[in-house]
């Protein structure tokens, strides 16, 4: 145990930097994904048949975007969008550049999560709001999203954890972060202790995020 702690101390600078990079990549790409993914998911739900803004064509397009993007394996997506990444950040290598493919992969993921959560909202409540003369915008902002919030939080928690997994993959191609450390030090240089320590940190991180997500969701859930 003391030996392990000693090793941890000697590697601490390295691991801390990796953790910071991971958090930076995941959190920034998550914010971008939420920013674009919520309108995407809302758009799919409101334009579907019998939705509050029924529009077949738009529904088809948005649904296709989600399906196509979700079906491309992340590692391929990451490579495929390198020109786009370069266009936005100026380079395709480094932690900041890694945010682009992470966000692109997470947007349809969040879109689907938002779609599923909003579909769980009782249609009767939407009908009641319509009967009160609410506009579609008011129904989205004052009914659909607040009513779906506990479920949205759980979905976003899930997406955040998946993103941590993805961030390890970008690490492998020069994105930095804990995944990168695990591969370069732990795997290529046979430093088993570094490998173990990164895994422990990742497990703790995932556990922490899930706990916070569960707590927040149940705190906001007034339906039971």
């Amino acid at each position, binding site marked *: 145990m003391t030996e392990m702690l000693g090793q941890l101390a000697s590697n601490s600078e390295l691991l801390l930097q990796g953790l910071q990079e991971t958090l930076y990549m995941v959190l920034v790409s998550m914010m971008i994904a939420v920013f674009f993914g919520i309108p995407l998911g809302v758009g799919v739900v409101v334009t579907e048949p019998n939705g509050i803004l029924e529009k077949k064509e738009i529904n088809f397009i948005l649904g296709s975007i989600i399906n196509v993007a979700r079906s491309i394996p992340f590692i391929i997506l990451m490579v495929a969008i390198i020109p786009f990444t370069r266009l936005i950040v100026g380079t395709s290598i480094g932690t900041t550049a890694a945010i682009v493919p992470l966000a692109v992969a997470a947007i349809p993921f969040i879109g689907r999560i938002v779609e599923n959560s909003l579909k769980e909202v*009782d249609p*009767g*409540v939407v*009908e*009641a*709001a*319509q*009967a*009160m*003369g*609410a*506009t579609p915008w*008011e129904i989205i902002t*004052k*009914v659909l999203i*607040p*009513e779906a*919030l506990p479920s949205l939080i759980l979905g976003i928690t899930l997406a955040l954890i998946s993103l941590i997994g993805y961030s390890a993959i970008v690490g492998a191609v020069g994105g930095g972060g804990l995944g990168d450390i695990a591969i370069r030090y732990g795997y290529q240089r046979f430093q088993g202790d570094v490998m173990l320590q990164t895994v422990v940190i990742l497990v703790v991180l995932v556990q922490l995020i899930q706990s916070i997500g569960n707590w927040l969701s149940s705190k*906001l859930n*007034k*339906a*039971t």
Partner: protein
Amino acid sequence: MIQIKELSKVYNSEEGQVVALKNVNLEIEAGQIFGIIGPSGAGKSSFIRCLNLLEEPTEGQVIVDGQDLTTLNTKKLRKARKKIGMIFQNFNLLQSRTVADNVAFPLELAGVDKEQIRVKVDELLELVGLADKTNNYPAQLSGGQQQRVGIARALANDPKLLLCDEATSSLDPQTTDSILDLLKDINHQLGITVVLITHEMEVIKQICDKVAVLEKGSIIEEGETIQVFTNPQHDTTKRFVQSVINADIPEEFYERKSVIEPETGKLIKVSFVGKSVKEPIISNVIKECDVDANILYGNIDKIQETSFGILLIEITGNNFSVKQAVNYLEEQNLKIEVIRNDRDVRTVS
């Protein structure tokens, strides 16, 4: 208050067209409680949703308070809906909002300022008897309490019309009564016109001034509740009436032998409505006509303020006085039916 002209609603589904309503014409006066009853699938739900255009009529006009809703654009329709309250079978409250915030919701939509909302919400919760539940969430309330919140919410923008979509169908009988009483109070105190749909005749009996019977998308019978109850025309209506009031005489009485003086006794069914109930008719008959009256069966019910019912009496005495008694009863504006006359008596005895 409401005129419905040539209203039709047709749904296009993959299996073909489904006609929910066809050529419905109806007039609902201001201040009334108007009930629409019908078996499931009759088109009740489509009908009530056509009154605030949650369902768009395929054909026809819906004129509420002088305004033809079918001609309004979306913006004007939303404005018109703010003056039409609606309550639902499943209450449809926002689970994420407290009781007070649910009631405040339509006021927020109408752009009322915060302070006024607070005052109005307190007033409404007081009205529906939930002043102590302000900060509870709907999930913490019973069904009846949730419907009270629904009612408070529906009344927030001072509507002239309240639509009730099977508002008591998911409540137990006792809670149903209390919600119906509340609706009646609201109708009396605030003068709000109430239109309700239901499949329970009990609801019609307890609070409706007028009733229309809907079957297969058409109105088959319509009238004052008391009239429809005492004199139903259509078979469906009769079945509904029988579900709450049994105006029939049990079979066994038709075969019953007269106990005394079988030769002259008459079995008479007396049906009465309204004020005659309060007069001592039977004792008057006995005194005036020198007959004996034996009450065999009786069933008296009340539709709101009006009593009505049937009485089966056996009148015995000499031939002349029995005839006199029957005449006397007929003079009292009662519906008299001689169930067993002398011929029957002979066959029985």
